[in-house]
């Protein structure tokens, strides 16, 4: 099948790639662009391991076609840290031991970022609903929820005191 040229913005940088229409955005990220931070779990939209931000909204990249990225803004877990400095969310995941095997972590980070981008003061219940599309077989979720709540707290304080 003929490949299609797609121009997109990936983690803030303009990127052009070639893909087949049948390739998911997840496949493109991992196999064409070699960004393997985004994980593959179920390929049916159930686990959230493949979560990315598409025009600022969290989606399952396994249920998006690579060709749909034309003209879009895509953000993946690789775009979270600034150089060698981890983002607040990433640091809090480490501090709270919110991961064990780690395969779910990029998806949780992206889903949590999508929440905090719009709501820096979420209740625990709001955090749990926002992360309901992400499955974790190791942590039991509690530490993840606490890490996100704590990240929100630090980000609020940072906003308040500059």
């Amino acid at each position, binding site marked *: 099948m003929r490949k299609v040229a797609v121009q997109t913005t990936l983690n803030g940088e303009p990127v052009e790639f070639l893909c087949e229409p049948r390739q998911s955005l997840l496949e493109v990220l991992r196999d064409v662009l070699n960004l393997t931070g985004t994980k593959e779990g179920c390929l049916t939209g159930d686990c959230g391991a493949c979560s990315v931000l598409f025009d600022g909204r969290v989606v399952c990249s396994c249920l*998006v076609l690579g060709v749909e990225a034309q003209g879009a803004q895509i953000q993946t877990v690789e775009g979270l840290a600034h150089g060698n400095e981890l983002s607040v969310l990433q640091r809090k995941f480490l501090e709270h031991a919110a991961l064990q095997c780690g395969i779910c972590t990029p998806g949780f980070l992206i889903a949590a970022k999508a929440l905090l981008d719009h709501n820096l003061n979420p209740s625990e219940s709001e955090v749990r609903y926002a992360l309901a599309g992400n499955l974790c077989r190791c942590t039991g979720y509690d530490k993840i929820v606490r890490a996100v709540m704590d990240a929100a707290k630090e980000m609020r304080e940072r906003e308040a005191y500059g």
Partner: protein
Amino acid sequence: MHEFTYVAPSSVEEIVQFLAQHREKARPFCGGTDILVQMRSGVRRPSYLLDVKTAPETRLFEFDPAKGLRIGAAVPCADVSADPAVRRYYPGLAEAANLIGSVQIRNRASLGGNLANASPAADTVPALIALGAKAVLRSVQGQREVPVEGFVTAPGRTILNADEVITEFVIPPPQRGGADAYLRFVPRNEMDIAVAGVGVFVKMEGQRCVEARIVLGAVGPTQIVASEAMAYLRGRTLNEGVVSHAAELAAQAASPIDDVRGTREFRRHLVAVLTRRSLLAAAKRAQANQS
């Protein structure tokens, strides 16, 4: 996935021209939350995927208190449930749209896809039927407006012709003393498929119900309009006893199956419980809308 061609049309006109030429070989595509899963498992093998959301007409979102609500077929459920006018005037539709999948899924899943996929458990369909919504269909022959009630004819089957696309939904204006509600039962709060769902609309004059619509999901091959329960409620004062009797009538209208998600008896019981609760919720809202 099999090989196919992806098409990003810039107007509905382009979509219908393409459908007229390629018919069954082409398939509309929106959020992909149903069709990409089906294509990956080999259930569907279209030669062309036509991305309906790239045509701006399908993204329309307009509310006018006198004319009602128009929602483009491609508007994602996340936008439907977050919209202030939908939350204020059609809270049952907001509830249904907010129940679909996870945030990730709701950011992609469209109302058009939820209807056209024709699952008996589709959450927004009972809510749309309860509101008396119509779907606007376009083909090269022109446009027709059809009620959402009756659109689905069997699981996975609809009245949509191979050359037609859903462009938008038209929902009647809010009525004084009228309100809707949608409730479903799932074992898990988020990310689950309805074992039973009930969408209702009621119009109240004081304590008296002057009109009621009750639509059942996931308890039959298609959505079921509980006409006997609706007729029974008309003109009656909505007290506990009346609401419970209507709920029993609705449960009798259900024709559920036994499956891993629940037995027939359990589903019937759920219909009664959900009907009672959603009627009470809608009646309370309707009374608040009387002034």
